[in-house]
């Protein structure tokens, strides 16, 4: 009967719509690798992931993961079977993650100084107590790379053996190549006016800024991809997990945001050895840890030019750039990360964590 055929078709379409809505408006289970909270300060939490490898088979040097302060760090542990944390724990690393938490109005005065010189050292102190050793590795991603770089330069004798910087926005000299630099120019963007109203930089505005770099991809194409692949459970699971993370926005502490815009984007003070942190000038030549810089060739948020100059500034003798195709998030959380970036990081750390 033709009516039955039409009803079948409409029913199938309705089912597809229901599936689409369900994925769009629900949250995926992310950050599932077992962990325990070993330290807390204000909103920050230091997690230690439960080791899966026996103690005698584990690497001696623990690994601390530091993500950005305006996103949740769950991107590092996106979903079971596709998680960088799970991968490294399985390789035998003692993995810790510093979750900065979501700043409240009372945290609006927090600066990079506080993150790098108050929170990070205390977290590292706890990590060393638990791990029972003096040396550790630290991986900083995005703004986390700025904080870890500042820490490594200001506290070179804390025991940092290996420093890994992922898509690190450190060099802001090529302003023509940085869309964010154009948008936040002092001619167009009054950062003090924004912070006077909101205190902290709202997560929604930061999210808009990141999406507006590629508006069609982020506001249309992404949803078309979901619609097209609704019958592929793996594609849906992957999209769902990523969307859950992307939409979980948090604000950025006002004073830290102001430093990012004024001292870094506008004045490039870090690379020009003029950045004042804790009443001292950050001297990148103090960094002596082994250094791996991972650059995403297709990164439109942190173009490759921002992560290259650091190698010429540090005193590290063992240093390497690893360039890989992909985007800012994709190189660590994309579908091919477990074949490319993760093994390279694990391999680089292998010889340097014994």
């Amino acid at each position, binding site marked *: 009967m033709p009516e039955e055929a039409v009803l079948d*078709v409409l029913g*199938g*379409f309705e*089912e*597809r719509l229901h*599936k689409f809505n369900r994925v769009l408006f629900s949250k995926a289970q992310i950050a599932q690798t077992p962990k325990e909270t070993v*330290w807390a*300060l*204000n909103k920050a939490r230091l997690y230690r992931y439960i*080791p899966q490898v026996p*103690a*005698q*088979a*584990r*690497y*001696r040097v623990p690994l601390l993961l530091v993500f950005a302060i305006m996103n949740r760090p769950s991107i590092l542990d996106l979903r079971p079977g596709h998680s960088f944390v799970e991968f490294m724990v399985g390789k*035998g690393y*003692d993995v810790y993650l510093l979750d900065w938490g979501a700043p*409240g*109005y*009372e945290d*609006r*005065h927090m600066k990079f100084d506080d993150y790098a010189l*108050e929170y990070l050292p*205390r977290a590292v*102190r*706890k990590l060393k*107590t*638990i*791990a*029972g*050793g003096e040396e550790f590795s630290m991986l900083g991603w995005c703004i986390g790379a700025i904080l870890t770089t500042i820490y490594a330069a200001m506290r070179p004798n804390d025991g940092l053996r290996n420093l890994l910087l992922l898509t690190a926005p450190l060099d802001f000299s090529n302003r023509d190549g940085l*869309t964010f630099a*154009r*948008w936040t*120019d002092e*001619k*167009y*963007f*009054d950062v003090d*006016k*924004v912070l006077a*109203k909101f205190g902290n930089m709202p997560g929604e505005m930061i999210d808009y800024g990141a999406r*507006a*770099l*590629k*508006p*069609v*991809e982020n506001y*249309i*194409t992404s949803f*078309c991809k979901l*619609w*097209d692949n*609704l*019958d592929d459970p793996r594609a849906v699971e992957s999209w769902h997990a990523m969307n859950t993370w992307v939409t979980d926005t948090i604000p950025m502490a006002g004073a830290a945001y102001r430093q990012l815009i004024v001292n870094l984007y506008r004045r490039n003070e870090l690379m020009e050895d003029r950045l004042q942190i804790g009443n001292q000038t950050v001297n990148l030549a103090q960094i002596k840890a082994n250094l791996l810089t991972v650059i995403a060739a297709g990164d439109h948020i942190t173009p490759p030019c921002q992560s290259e100059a650091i190698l010429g500034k540090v005193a590290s003798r063992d240093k390497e750039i690893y360039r890989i195709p992909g985007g800012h998030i994709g190189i660590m959380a994309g579908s091919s990360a477990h074949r490319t970036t993760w093994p390279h990081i694990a391999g680089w750390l292998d010889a340097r*964590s*014994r």
Partner: protein
Amino acid sequence: MAETETEEKKTYDPFEPFRGMRDAYLESLSKAMTDVVNTESYAKATGAMLDCYLTASAPFREALERSMLQTMEQLSLPTRQEVAGLAERFTNVEMRLDDIDAKLEELTKEFAAMRQAAKEPASFAAGPGATHQPRRDSSQGEGARK
């Protein structure tokens, strides 16, 4: 069999025949929009919009804040600033406690090492050249070795 199962699970997509056209259109739109957002004009326009919003909302915000402040004072309730100030002080107290905790852990370790050294007098009888390595106890963590 697997193919049939996959086909059975497939839901109907009325837009499937138009995917190619859609993707081609979106690709060209994407390139155009990426160029647009990278212009000075776009930066100027978004900056102006934001500035306009902040300027227009400022009088209302200030009036609301003044009114809220008076209301909170009359009701003897703490204002947002006062609560935020307290929270900042709590964070400072937390930091001090964390430092004290760390010092106590260090002292505990040293006491344990001294107690261990006291239990092994033979190594001291060997003379000043003898070295003594305190054993790690479980309170120092697993201290994994590879």
